[in-house]
């Protein structure tokens, strides 16, 4: 405990670094996966192609991807941008399937009713398809959030500071407590992110409270199917 108090400033700074590294991939990944997921769902051929690409991208291991990013981005090897972009790729790869499946789940009669009421395709997407897919998207986003927060720690290996720094530092100093505190704080960040997502979901989708459970269940099934 003494160590925690003596180093509270370091812990706080690392936690903030961690948040700064993990929030952009989650937000960017979600924003990018909407149009891509929509495109995947729109045509039969694009669905197969885009979902296959997403599956392949998701299969690429994280640490090697951090080392490949400089080739694509022209960044330095130890640039934090490598981690952010690589994690954004994972987030997109994971979310595209969720978005495509969520949008595909809108019942045909609902879509036709919206069209009959004079909704344009654009308006129908925002006011019918997207809200109906909301609970599924939220469930997917929660998975993305948890895995991103966890993966950011791997960046510590290439010198990109996050709570993962505590793992390496604790290991090299034979100080298990530091490693354990790093794990606990990472879990706390993951829990806070998850709480924010759930809260945002309740605010944005007040009607969805009862359907949250089936949404998660469907996701678990599909997640297993996707891999």
């Amino acid at each position, binding site marked *: 405990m003494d160590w925690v108090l003596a180093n509270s400033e370091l812990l706080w700074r690392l936690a903030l670094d961690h948040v700064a590294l993990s929030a952009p991939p989650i937000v960017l990944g979600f924003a990018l996966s909407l149009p891509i997921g929509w495109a995947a*769902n729109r045509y*039969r051929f694009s*669905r197969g192609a885009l*979902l296959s690409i997403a*599956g*392949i991208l998701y*299969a*690429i*291991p*994280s*640490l*090697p*991807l951090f*080392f*490949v990013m*400089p*080739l694509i981005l022209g960044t330095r*090897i130890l640039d934090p941008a490598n981690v952010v972009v690589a994690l954004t790729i994972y987030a997109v790869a994971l979310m595209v399937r969720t978005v495509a*499946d969520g949008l*595909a*789940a*809108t019942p*045909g009669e609902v879509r036709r009713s919206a069209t009959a009421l004079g909704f344009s395709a654009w308006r129908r997407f925002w006011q019918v398809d997207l809200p109906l897919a909301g609970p599924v998207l939220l469930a997917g986003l929660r*998975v993305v959030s*948890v*895995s991103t*927060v*966890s993966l950011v*720690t*791997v960046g510590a*290996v*290439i010198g990109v500071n996050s*709570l*993962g720094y*505590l*793992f*390496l530092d*604790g*290991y090299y100093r*034979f*100080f*298990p407590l530091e*490693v*354990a505190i*790093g*794990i606990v704080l*990472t*879990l706390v960040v*993951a*829990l806070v992110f998850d709480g924010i997502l759930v809260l945002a979901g309740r605010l944005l989708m007040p009607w969805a409270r009862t359907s949250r459970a089936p949404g*998660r*269940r469907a996701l*678990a*099934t*599909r*997640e*297993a*199917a*996707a*891999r």
Partner: protein
Amino acid sequence: MNFLIEAFAWIGDPAHWSGDDGILTRSGQHVGFTLLTLALACAVALPVGLTIGHTGRGRGLGVAAAGALRALPTLGLLLLFALGMPLGPLPAVVALVVLALPPVLAGAYAGLESVDRATVDAARGVGMTGWQVLWRVEIPIALPLILGGVRSAALQVIATWTVAAILPVGGLGRYIFDALPLQQYDKMLAGSILVIALALLTDAIFALVQRLVVPKGVVAGVTAPVT
């Protein structure tokens, strides 16, 4: 782009293929440890997951456990175990088994849940015992999803064995961690490319097997229908 050429030149150099630190030995270690980890994880998670899926009991507990394990940062777990255990591959194996449990568990119970209840009822109706229903009906139909869970675990284990090379263990991650302090970018990149290739190859093999094990007569496939 020069780095990429240098990395492929590194891989193409025959001197890097043989010996204790050769690509063949390192790949063999990587694959061997991955199989060992997967076998241990399956031995634990498959019976538990199948029990949950078959009986429907303990589902909440299984989902919660899988979710909590998923949030654990593997690098932290790895280094924490390494501090508490003797040198060698043991801490890495334990940490990676923990990592591989959630996807296998989720694949198993989600797979059995995806089996149409009417099919299970019909199997009971013709006089099958619980075991027969499980082995002759539920598992064959759920096999693609169960394998999906194993596939997901396999990819994560391959990715994380790379990170595990921060400890004195073999595998392709050795190239990355041996080259990192010396700033040999060609070797780091070569190691990264080899791991990525191994992951994509594994993914492709699983995709093929998942397709082959779908029983004749089961049309309800792995992906959701396109609307």
